C-alpha cells in the first residue's frame, strides 16, 4: 500500500508540473506572479492557457493511461493470459474504424467521436454474440471471436482509408490513428474523464475477484465466485475504457499490454496490487510522454507513436525478468 501511495503522490506531482509546462512559457518569476494574481481573481494569459488547454489535456492523459493499463491488467487476469490487452475483444479496432468513418462522412470532431464510441461498443457486442452463437462459454472461444471481429474491423478500416480523399481525409485518419492529444476536444474531456475514472476505480475494486477468476471458471465457481457476473462486469468496464480512450485520443499503443507486466514485475502477481499500481503507472507513463510529445521538439510528436517507441525497448530489456512469473 505504501508503494501505491508513493505512485499516487508522484502522479499528482507530475500532473502539477505538467500544468506549468508548455510552449507558452513565461519566466518562473513572472509565472509565479501571474499565478498569484490569478488566485486573487485577476485573469491572466497563463491562467487561460492552463484552464483551457493544459488542464483538459493532463486530465485526458491521466484517464487514458490509467484506463488502458487497468483494463489490460484486468483482461490478462480474465483471459488467464499475460499477453491479453484492451484490444482482445475487438473494441479498439471497432472504435478505430468508427473514427475513420466519422472523419470520412462527418465534419465536426464530435461526430467522429460519437461514431468511434458507437462502433467500439458494436464490435465488442458482435464478439460476444459470435461467442454465444458458437455456444461455448469458454475463454478461448471468446478470444477467437475477438480476433475475428478485430480483424474484420481492421479490414473495414483499410477500406475506409482506401476510399478516403488522399489530400484531406486520409491524412486526418492516419494522424488520428497514430494517437494524439493535440487536437483534443475540451467538452468531450469533461464529459468522458469522470466516466473513465469511475470505471478505473471499479476495476481496481475487483482485484480479488479477478485473482479468483484467473484460477479458471470452474474453480472460481466452486470457490463461490459468480463467474458470469464478474466476467460481464469486467468486459463492460474495460470496453468502456478502451473505447472512450480511442474517442479522445486515437490509438495509444502498448500501454495496456506493457504497463501491467511492469507492475507485476515490481509488485508481484496479486491483482489487488497489480490493478491500482497499473492504473497509476499507466497514468504517469502517458502523462509524462505527452509532456515530451508537446514540448520536447519543435513539432509535436504523435503520442501513440511515442508510447510504443519508449515502451517496447523498456519491455525488451525487462522481458527476461517479466517471463519468470509465467509458467509454461
Amino acid at each position, binding site marked *: 500500500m505504501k508503494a501505491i501511495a508513493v505512485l499516487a503522490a508522484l502522479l499528482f506531482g507530475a500532473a502539477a508540473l505538467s500544468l506549468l509546462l508548455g510552449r507558452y512559457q513565461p519566466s518562473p518569476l513572472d509565472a509565479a506572479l501571474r499565478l498569484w494574481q490569478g488566485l486573487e481573481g485577476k485573469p491572466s494569459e497563463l491562467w487561460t492557457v492552463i484552464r483551457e488547454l493544459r488542464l483538459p489535456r493532463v486530465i485526458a492523459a491521466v484517464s487514458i493511461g490509467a484506463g488502458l493499463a487497468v483494463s489490460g491488467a484486468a483482461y490478462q487476469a480474465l483471459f488467464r493470459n499475460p499477453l491479453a490487452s484492451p484490444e482482445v475483444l475487438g473494441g479498439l479496432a471497432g472504435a478505430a474504424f468508427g473514427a475513420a468513418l466519422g472523419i470520412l462522412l462527418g465534419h465536426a470532431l464530435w461526430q467522429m467521436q460519437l461514431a468511434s464510441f458507437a462502433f467500439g461498443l458494436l464490435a465488442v457486442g458482435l464478439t460476444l454474440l459470435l461467442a454465444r452463437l458458437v455456444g461455448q462459454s469458454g475463454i478461448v472461444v471468446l478470444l477467437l471471436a475477438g480476433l475475428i471481429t478485430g480483424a474484420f474491423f481492421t479490414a473495414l478500416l483499410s477500406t475506409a482509408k482506401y476510399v478516403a480523399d488522399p489530400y484531406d481525409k486520409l491524412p486526418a485518419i492516419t494522424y488520428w490513428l497514430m494517437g494524439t492529444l493535440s487536437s483534443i476536444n475540451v467538452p468531450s474531456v469533461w464529459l468522458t474523464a469522470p466516466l473513465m475514472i469511475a470505471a478505473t476505480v471499479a476495476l481496481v475494486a475487483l482485484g480479488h475477484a479477478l485473482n479468483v477468476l484467473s484460477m479458471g471458471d470452474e474453480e472460481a465457481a466452486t470457490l*463461490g*465466485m*459468480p*463467474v458470469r457476473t464478474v466476467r460481464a462486469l469486467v468486459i463492460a468496464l474495460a470496453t468502456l475504457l478502451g473505447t472512450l480512450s480511442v474517442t479522445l485520443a486515437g490509438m495509444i499503443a502498448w500501454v495496456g499490454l506493457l504497463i501491467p507486466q511492469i507492475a507485476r514485475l515490481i509488485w508481484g502477481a496479486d491483482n489487488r496490487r497489480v490493478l491500482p499500481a497499473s492504473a497509476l503507472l499507466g497514468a504517469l507513463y502517458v502523462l509524462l510522454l505527452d509532456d515530451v510529445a508537446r514540448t520536447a521538439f519543435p513539432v509535436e510528436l504523435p503520442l501513440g507513436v511515442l508510447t510504443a517507441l519508449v515502451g517496447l525497448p523498456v519491455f525488451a530489456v525487462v522481458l527476461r525478468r517479466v517471463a519468470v512469473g509465467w*509458467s509454461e
Partner: protein
Amino acid sequence: MIEARDLYAGYDRQPVVQGVTLRIARGETLALLGPNGCGKTTLLKALCAIHPAHSGSIHVDGDDLGHLSAPERARRIAYVPQQHRLVFAYSVLDVVMMGRLAGRGLIARPTPADFAAVHAVLAQLGLRDLAGRSYAALSGGQRQQVLIARALAQDAPYLLLDEPASSLDYGNQLRLLELLGQLRDGGRGVLFTTHHPDHAFVVATRVVLMQAGRFIAQGTPAQCMNREQLARLYALPADELDQAVRAQRWAQQAV
C-alpha cells in the same frame, strides 16, 4: 448430507455419469474407485455444480443444489481439483486466501481472522514455510497440498477431493490419509477419488466402485474390495492381481 438420486451428468449430450445414486453423510469418508475415464471426475464436478446434471437430483442438507447461489454452494461444499499449473505467480498465501474470500462478494478484503485461519491451515498441513513462495514455482505435490489447504480454509462441511494423493510422495500420502480421517472424525463428510485400493482400506468408511459411468458395488472396504471385484473393476485377470498383491506383501516384509 449430500444426496444424489438417479444422476446423469456429462459434458455434451452424451452423459458420462449414468444413473448414479449416492449419499455422503457428515462424519464419513467415502472412497470412489474406478478405472481411468469411468466418470469419477465428472461425478465430483456434478456434485459441486460445475457441470449441471442432465437429469436426476442433487440435494445438500435438504436443499436442491441447483437452487443455491455460488457463495451458498461454496459455504457447504469445498472442492479440490487435480493439481494444475497457473500463469500468474500468486503466492501460496494468496491462493489459500481465495478459499476464505471468494464466497464473500466481489470486493471482499481479508480480515485479521482470515489471516489467522489461513496460517492455521498452512500449519496444519506443514506448509508454513511455503506461505510466501510462488504457487507456479512449486512442485506438483506441493501444489496439490496448497489446493487442499485452500479447500480447508473454505471451512465447508463437505469436501470433495479429486485424486488428492496422485502427486504426493509416500510420506505425504500417509499424512493426507490421516488428515482425511481427522476431518471425518471432526464431523465433515468427505468424498475422495483414488487409484490406490489400499488408501480406501486405510481411511474409508465406505467404498464405491465405478465403471463406465455406473456404480458396480458399494459398501465397507472389506465388503466390496475383494479379489473378484477389483479384478472386475480394473479388467484384470485375477492372477495378475494376485501377483501385484504378493509383491506388495513382499515389500511389506522387507520393511
